[in-house]
């Protein structure tokens, strides 16, 4: 077991992302195809949520889900200890990693020690967060994403745009083009069925070769040391049953106490994520294969990643640890629906990503400090969250915590503003002074350009030089 170190700052947002958040947002807004693709996805999700609420009592399930997750987070140290003991009892190995670098070092070292050349991966946000693929590839190990959406992105050298539907920003024609380039032939069908069948055959070759399978963990059940991996395609089962070694990477907050908790979370997760009352496959894995069994991995390793999570317990942001990564807040968010996940520059996008990315990185990280402002605070995310995280409140608190030249400047401006308004005399002097200023500044009765901090305001509007304005 590793020694616990102070969490290292930084490292969640993509280091190679291009442009500022503002530039990426403007660019995404201009991409009509992207907006159509996002709108298609979000509206089909929203229609499904109506059905979940009406026919499956989803609203009633939320309160209990929130209670379960808050209790799990409160008991986290004890639950992790129990989880660890039970995985070991089942013959598995457990590693606690203080940060992503430590997790990557362990997994890469294991792959090298066992002579692994090809790794088959199923979808995992935790491995995206710790940038495991880059670490393995840097050691000369081939990594193949086997979730259809993730594979498409890997071939296109793109980042995921949604927690559970990573390639949702691409349409069928774009996917066919990506597959043709990879296969080096035009002989790839255009229809959805054909594209899915093409991927199935190509990826079976990977499953035949892979010496290690790497998966994420949706929830860990402490009472039996079981990891639950939820999926629809069947690739996670192949990842966890075909290669000789299975490595499961779990964010430390993903643990629940027992099967009572697990049953409830496993039910509400697909409801929130895909508007279905069950996912197609839920893989419940307790240690490696047992004696006499003829498939399944001979080695099972559970890597539990802190990465800044532990430090959030007991803070005003503790409830973000309740998140079950369903992606509902993304689909519900008018910002995400307009620009997609890639503009955020982090594996975690949408409202939850705008809160946790800067929390995990530290408040002054240039890559993520502006993210809490990617919200209109409309509250839709708070209504969508199946575990009742008060996302709008946390966005406001995350803004208060953000620190950049821009936030410091606006803090000074608002302090001056409040001093001015607090006394009658300074207020009246200010009003008279401002009237005089705009009268002198205006031409034809309108001020079209303000100096300094006011320039942003007049970039898209004019201010009347007198009231009522001249038409």
């Amino acid at each position, binding site marked *: 077991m590793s020694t616990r170190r102070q969490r290292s700052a930084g490292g969640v947002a993509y280091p190679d992302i291009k442009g500022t958040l503002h530039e990426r947002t403007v660019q995404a807004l201009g991409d009509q195809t992207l907006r159509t693709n996002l709108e298609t996805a979000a509206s089909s999700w929203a229609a499904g949520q109506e059905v979940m609420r009406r026919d499956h009592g989803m609203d009633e399930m939320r309160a209990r889900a929130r209670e379960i997750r808050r209790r799990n987070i409160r008991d986290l140290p004890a639950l992790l200890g129990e989880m660890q003991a039970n995985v070991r009892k089942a013959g598995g190995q457990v590693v606690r990693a203080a940060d992503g670098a430590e997790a990557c070092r362990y997994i890469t070292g294991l792959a090298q020690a066992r002579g692994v050349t090809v790794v088959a991966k199923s979808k995992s946000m935790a491995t995206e967060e710790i940038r495991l693929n880059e670490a393995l590839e840097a050691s000369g190990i081939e990594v193949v994403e086997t979730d259809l959406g993730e594979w498409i992105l890997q071939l296109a050298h793109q980042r995921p745009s949604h927690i559970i539907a990573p390639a949702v920003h691409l349409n069928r024609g774009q*996917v066919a083009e990506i597959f043709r380039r990879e296969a080096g032939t035009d002989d790839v069908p255009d229809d959805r069925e054909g594209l*899915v069948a093409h991927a199935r055959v190509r990826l079976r070759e990977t499953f035949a070769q892979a010496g290690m399978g790497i998966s994420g963990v949706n929830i860990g059940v402490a009472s*039996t040391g079981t990891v639950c991996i939820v999926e629809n*395609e069947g690739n996670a*089962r*192949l990842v966890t049953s075909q290669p000789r070694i299975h490595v499961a990477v779990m964010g430390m907050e993903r643990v629940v106490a027992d099967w009572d908790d697990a*049953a409830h979370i496993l039910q509400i997760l697909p409801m929130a994520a895909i508007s279905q*009352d*069950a996912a197609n496959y839920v893989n419940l894995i307790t240690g490696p294969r047992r004696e006499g*069994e003829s498939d399944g991995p001979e080695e099972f390793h559970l890597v539990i990643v802190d990465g800044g999570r532990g430090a959030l317990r007991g803070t005003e942001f503790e409830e973000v640890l309740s998140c079950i990564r369903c992606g509902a807040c993304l689909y519900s968010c008018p910002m995400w629906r307009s620009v997609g996940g890639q503009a955020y520059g982090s594996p975690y996008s949408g409202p939850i990503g705008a809160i946790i990315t800067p929390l995990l990185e530290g408040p002054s990280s240039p890559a993520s400090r502006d993210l809490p402002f990617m919200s209109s605070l409309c509250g839709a995310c708070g209504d969508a969250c199946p575990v009742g995280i008060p996302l709008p409140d946390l966005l406001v608190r995350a803004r208060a915590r953000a620190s950049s030249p821009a936030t410091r400047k606006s803090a000074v401006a608002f302090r001056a503003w409040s001093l001015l308004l607090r006394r009658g005399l300074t207020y009246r002097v200010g009003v008279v002074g401002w009237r005089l200023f705009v009268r002198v500044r205006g031409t034809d009765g309108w001020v079209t350009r303000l100096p300094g901090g006011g320039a942003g305001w007049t970039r898209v509007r004019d201010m009347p030089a007198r009231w009522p304005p001249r038409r």
Partner: protein
Amino acid sequence: MAATPVSDHLLDALVASLTRRTATSQVVDDADAGRATARWMADAGVARAVLPRDPVIARIDLGAALRREGIEVIDWPTSLGRREVLGLEGPEAVCGVTVPALAVAERGTLVLEASPGHGRGLDVTSRHHVAILPAERIVETLAEALARTFATGGPVPSAVSLVSGPSRSSDIEKISTLGAHGAVSEHVVIVR
């Protein structure tokens, strides 16, 4: 076999849930189960079936019924190589047969437990998946099924798979497409 009365309510609910999940099902009597399953597979064009080592399979004598339909029978555990298990070699129309430990009526979910006689990949490595389900194993809710499987106080299986319908992906344009990595079709034979 102790005769447990089978609730029609649970049976009907399971059949409805399976249909909702685009799985097919049929309800047969114990004596007819082997023959009916073999006929269904023959109609689906199955060339090879992989059978778990399970008392239910032996009781309905599925192997003999399949051979009579001209379907090749592979018994699990098998000496086939990994490429052939994955369908990269050998016939394409392979059907993996499972015997669920439980089934959830409310959601159309099958609970498959790994054991020496029952491989954990049987249903996803093959093109088709046929489950032979004794009707007395149907329970109402997922919570009940999980409690029976895991909250026993004894050792839990190394791998349990909850399977709710054939493999699908909605990764392209959010539209559900069947047969992503696992079985393209799922058929449940409920044995009374």
